[in-house]
């Protein structure tokens, strides 16, 4: 038994190394000088740690990194709570309001899950483009606000919501909207947080849609900016890595701080998906 556990630890460490290696490379490369990173010899750590890469990354006028970070922050900070709220509202309506339309509306919503999102980016582009959404903030945000899957999860949650609590609310004179705003919504914090954080990560890391719809540098997200840097002819490598490091830092911190919620969200979306 004891040997078995030692073997497990040895194996898990062997696997952990390649999982951590890219993070190490990202940090090491971001702190090197151009000359040292471009040299043909292997260096474990920069001879002289320099932050010139960060200065270069933010000082590049052709690729406005700071502005792109601002765009990504804005898009994710609007999208995540709004998308989650919209799903929660619809989920409550479908679960707790006894109207005849609930069933057809439910099927109308979940039928959209049949169609994979990324594969249909051209039809979505056609609609958003026809409404003048190319190179606009709303064009970047709007199509990502409506998740049938999140509705499904919220509906499931509100179906299990204790009826006694609602009855008590009704005695106090609350209608359906009041019950949702005063009772259901405040009591769905855990689900709200889990799905909201996942939505934030998804929007922050999204690439294809921002690439398609935000073509003007004014509307680049951080992923599009990094991709532009990566595919340039004349590369400033330390700046490239420094930019990438800045771009993943918020999410890595979020992962370490809020892992409990993220894991809950993953289990909800993964197992039922």
């Amino acid at each position, binding site marked *: 038994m004891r040997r078995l*556990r030692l073997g497990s630890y040895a194996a898990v460490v062997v696997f952990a190394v390649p999982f951590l290696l890219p993070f190490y490379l990202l940090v090491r490369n971001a702190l090197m000088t151009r000359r040292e990173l471009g040299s043909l010899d292997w260096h474990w750590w920069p001879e002289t740690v320099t932050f010139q890469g960060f200065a270069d990354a933010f000082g590049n006028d052709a690729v406005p990194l700071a502005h792109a970070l601002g765009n990504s922050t804005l898009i994710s900070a609007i999208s995540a709570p709004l998308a989650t709220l919209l799903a929660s509202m619809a989920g409550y309506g479908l679960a707790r309001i006894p109207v005849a*339309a609930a069933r057809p509306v439910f099927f109308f919503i979940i039928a959209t899950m049949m169609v994979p999102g*990324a594969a249909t980016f051209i039809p979505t582009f*056609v609609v958003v483009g026809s409404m003048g959404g190319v190179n606009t903030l709303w064009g970047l945000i709007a199509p990502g606000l409506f998740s049938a899957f999140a509705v499904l999860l919220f509906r499931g949650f509100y179906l299990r919501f204790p009826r006694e609590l609602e009855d008590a609310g009704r005695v106090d004179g609350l209608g359906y909207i009041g019950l949702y705003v005063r009772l259901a919504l405040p009591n769905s914090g855990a689900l709200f947080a889990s799905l909201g954080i996942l939505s934030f990560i998804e929007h922050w890391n999204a690439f294809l849609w921002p690439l398609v719809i935000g073509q003007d540098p004014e509307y680049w997200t951080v992923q599009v900016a990094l991709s532009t840097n990566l*595919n340039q002819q004349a590369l400033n490598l330390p700046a*490239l*890595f420094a930019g990438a490091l800045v771009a993943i830092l918020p999410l890595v911190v979020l992962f370490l701080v809020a892992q409990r919620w993220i894991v809950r969200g993953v289990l909800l979306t993964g*197992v039922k*998906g």
Partner: protein
Amino acid sequence: MTTTAGLARLRTGRWPAWRAFVLLTLPMVAGLFLFKYVAIGWGLLLSFNDARGTISLGSWNGLENYRRLLSDPAFTRSLVTILLFTLFIVPVTFALALGLAVLVNRLRRGRALFRTTFFVPAAVSYVVGALIWKMSLFNGTPSGVANSLAYLLGHEDAIGWVATVDPPLYWIVLVTVRLWLQTGFYMILFLAGIQQVPAQLYEAARVDGAHSEWTLFRHITWPMLRNTSVAVTLLLIINAFQAFDEFYNILASNLSGLGGADGRTPLIYLFQTALGEQNYGAGSAGAFVVTALIVAFTLLQGRFAGFGRTAEEEAR
């Protein structure tokens, strides 16, 4: 009804059921209607049109877009590419995620630490993953990590990992970057599945004389993970089929930039068709071909895994 009366009703909370229902569900229904139903309907009609440089209907050309698309070697090549990629990445990710979950689950101490280690790459975007892989791990210079390793193993010449088609070493780059980015996510799913297996099952099996770890895994853990396995495979296939980010960022300035079709996925092909050539008719047609393939694949996989039963279990 006037606004004041509406506000008064909101305050006393006496909204009729249907009105509350509309208020709560309308934003979602309207959004899905516009961005899914209208988009897909419009795209479908557009796919029967000669729509070059325009997104309006009117120049109907029947199935011409589909015919031309399916007879374009670059498109069929991209379908082969994504099929091969899916056949590689799905089983490899599945096995690695399951293996890591079993391994992490056996640890007494440090379980959270290692779980985080394997899970945290899921926070990284595909763009950044591609950037590290292309520019540091698998760059073509002798100081690249992969080339340094190859040197230690006796291979003295620097290998241009993403710069050559023959041999197609760029596959290693593409598969490993996705492996790094997505394995942790699926490991979390397997880990949860493993932890839901009742401990009594293992105890009962031990009483019955099953002692080896492998026997316990084969006869208890694996069958109990059936639902998780089905879900994981489904998600893996759907995601693999829609691969775009890493192909675009690792190969854009190499293979596809040189005009080669080797590293082009269907979504990259469609991206070039719709945004490069502004051919929205052909682009829409391609979107429906890819969608049909994904749906067909998931149904096929569901048939294999007895999807009907899981649905039934969920309905209960």
